[in-house]
């Protein structure tokens, strides 16, 4: 059997780590959603400079490893005189990285709203921004929920990157328990179950939201 004494003896440690993982994930989730949506709008706006910024950001950030993005904050900023805590570096890194993927998901959602919607909104006198905000984005939301769910699940799992920079998250404490008890397998299996505790309910919640919104069609 699994060594359940690991779970009972170190339950508090796991919970501390879980709390930190939830905290980092929630911050990064909110941040990356806002930043990602902004970038998606940049990428499809008629204003060329904004488009370039959006495209450059997405193509740069999503094509490098997450670890590098985090190191950019963790090791790259201090020489410039900015020393952020490991936790802040990890959370910022996660936000910046996930935003690139969310931008793509949201962009695809917006583009899948029929062109006629935008044209109709514009010809009834709404500005581009208003048409986007009031007509197109609300329709796009339904379409982007499943891909966003994917990104959020990835984000929660990716938050384990904090363990590399001493961010005191779930994985960090799992590493510590494993190195103190030498019981490697069970320790990480329990850590995995704690991650499932976060990701599975998230999937169910978005599934529910999806059905709920579909009702209005």
């Amino acid at each position, binding site marked *: *059997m699994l060594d359940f004494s690991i779970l009972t003896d170190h339950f508090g440690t796991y919970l501390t780590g879980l709390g930190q993982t939830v905290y980092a994930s929630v911050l990064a989730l909110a941040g990356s959603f806002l930043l990602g949506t902004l970038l998606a709008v940049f990428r499809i706006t008629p204003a060329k400079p904004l488009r370039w910024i959006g495209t450059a950001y997405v193509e740069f950030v999503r094509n490098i490893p997450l670890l590098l993005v985090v190191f950019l904050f*963790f090791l790259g900023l201090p*020489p410039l005189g900015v*020393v952020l805590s490991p936790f802040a570096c990890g959370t910022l890194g996660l936000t910046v990285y996930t935003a690139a993927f969310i931008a793509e998901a949201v962009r695809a959602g917006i583009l899948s709203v029929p062109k006629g919607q935008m044209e109709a909104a514009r010809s009834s006198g709404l500005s581009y921004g208003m048409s986007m905000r009031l007509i197109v984005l609300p329709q796009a939301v339904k379409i982007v929920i499943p891909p966003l769910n994917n990104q959020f699940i990835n984000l929660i799992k990716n938050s384990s990157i904090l363990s*590399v920079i001493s961010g005191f998250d779930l994985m960090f404490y799992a590493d*510590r328990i494993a190195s103190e008890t030498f019981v490697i397998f069970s320790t990480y299996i329990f850590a995995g179950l704690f991650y499932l505790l976060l990701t599975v309910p998230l999937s169910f919640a978005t599934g529910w939201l999806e059905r709920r919104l579909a009702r209005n069609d």
Partner: protein
Amino acid sequence: MRKRRWLAVGVAVLVITVLTLAGCGKKEENNTKGASPSSSPSASSASSGTAAGGTPTLDAIKNRGKLVVGVKFDTRLFGLKDPATGKVEGFDIDIAKGLAKELLGDESKVELKEVTSKTRIPMINNGDIDLIIATMTITEDRKKEVDFSDVYFKAGQSLLVKKGSPIQSIDDIKKGTKVIGVKGSTSVLNIAEKAPDATVLEFDNYQDAFTALKAGQGDALTTDNAILYGMASQDPNYEVVGGTFTDEPYGIAVKKGNADLVAFVNDYLKKLHDSGEYDKLYEKWIGETPIQQ
């Protein structure tokens, strides 16, 4: 109704998965606890080892024709892989080669596998390596997991700081001082005890820890002085301060019950000391002669 049925299937799958994993866990644990009969044909009789006059572990290594040693690849002066040549060099490596020469007559008959503080005990218990020579401190906790040879290097914990740092010894570590260490090492436990006000940041290995120190993520890096000297030799802007505040006797670890291998290693270490080879080796890597005690 259909929804509920799917839920039932989902739960069933989850339960089966967990049970399967639990099964795996059991198997692994059996392997890691005590002598595993399957790892080598002679290992099962190892516990009766030298007492009966046999040398089952040594025979198994001789039959295989090479000695497999777990060493650090990231620790200057002890075990460091040169990325250009791919060669691993250091004090620990020279000991490993010496043992291979003694046992198999040829110092090239040694296979070096990378270990970290985290992986070395699982690896030796899995039978992946014969010996751990990896700046490993002998502790009571570890003695429950592995057997140790005599002390082959007397180290002590110290502090590495940037030159001109206000921290000159362990007494200068105040509340809020950020001290960097390595996960799973004795040094992070020691620092938490000797300087409880310190904020301890933990990294996976010494390179990452030193990189974090250089980036200004911490005020001091703590581990054995032997490793810190290696880092200071790498970057002259950093220095070791305050002497040692612990005794860290390094030992060579073998899997529990392999008494013949421990005896062989101890014989070799004694020979090394008697012939004066040890002092030469020490000076070659550490740059000074060993302190006589």
